[in-house]
């Protein structure tokens, strides 16, 4: 068995450990995004159809724990979904390198910090 396994494992190994996990999280985040974006749209546009959207209302909403949590999760999941999608497209075109993964990770973390910082201003 060791012989077979050795042979088979000799196939190119790179950042392969991540592939299965990212595929799974891409699906989980997609499901979450559909769900939360639906709720988000409903609250903003359909809960009080007569209401005119004003900055003060948005600011007040962002002071509640529920909105802060949902928006933070939307930010994290949206960023993961978009950047992992971009990573996938690059891989589809056979563009693969650790530095690309690292740059996308940096962009994701940077944008997440910016987003959280902006949300924090309303607390």
């Amino acid at each position: 068995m060791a012989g077979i396994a050795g042979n088979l494992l000799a196939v190119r190994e790179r950042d392969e450990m991540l592939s299965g996990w990212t595929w799974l999280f891409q699906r989980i985040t997609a499901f979450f995004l559909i769900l939360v974006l639906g709720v988000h749209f409903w609250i903003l546009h359909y809960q009080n159809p007569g209401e005119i959207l004003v900055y003060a209302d948005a600011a007040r909403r962002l002071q509640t724990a529920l909105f802060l949590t949902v928006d933070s999760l939307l930010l994290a999941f949206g960023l993961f979904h978009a950047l992992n999608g971009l990573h996938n497209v690059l891989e589809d075109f056979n563009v693969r390198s650790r530095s690309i993964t690292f740059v996308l990770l940096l962009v994701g973390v940077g944008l997440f910090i910016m987003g959280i910082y902006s949300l924090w201003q309303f607390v």
Partner: protein
Amino acid sequence: MTLNVKVFRFNPETDKMPRFDTFKIEEFPNMAVLDVVMNIQNYHDPTLAYRCSCRIGMCGSCAMYINGRPRLACRTQVSSLGTKDITIMPLPNLPIIRDLAVDMEPFFEKYKKIKPYLIPKQDLKEPVICKPDSGERELIDYMLECITCGACYGACTMVATDPHYLGPAALTRAYCLIADKRDAATRERLVIVEQSEGVWRCHTQFNCAEVCPKKIVPTQAIQQLKKRCVFKRLGLFRG
């Protein structure tokens, strides 16, 4: 009835650019596209290169790109095309040897990567029988019909963009072995298909299933493999 046949011509050793030659061919009842190609070679241009063998849809050697779609030339009736204008080109995504003959090596290189043969468990007592109604065969029964024609490989846009992607046929074969309870190398095969050039490149476009002359749905095999890869990651895979 006269058929207007446009045939792709290219000899990489002598030609700078490919070209199309046009032939007028008399249609006869039950004529297959392979008959058209043979007719051209026999009566119009003996230098036309193509590949065929069994002429009954078993060997998989006559796959060509016929009117914008990979098909077996021997199993494609001219009447089924619904037109008298026929364009015949070599299978996409493979290097051209000459005219309609492509080099199948990249296809079989990938096939080889997944070790396309059963590695039997040592403790099995011969003869090993998987009863048809036991459920042990899952979907693999009909997927074993693959004749390695490469039509799915030629239709796959992911193979077109990433030449390292294992492709539908190799992954379907891998699934047949991974789902086979008698195979001893299940996990090792999963390690190969879960590489980034394996199952994750498939975007479930079903192009492969659309063109498979054996009505196999490689996408289904690939989805089954993805499921097993995730189960393996979660420590839930029993194989």
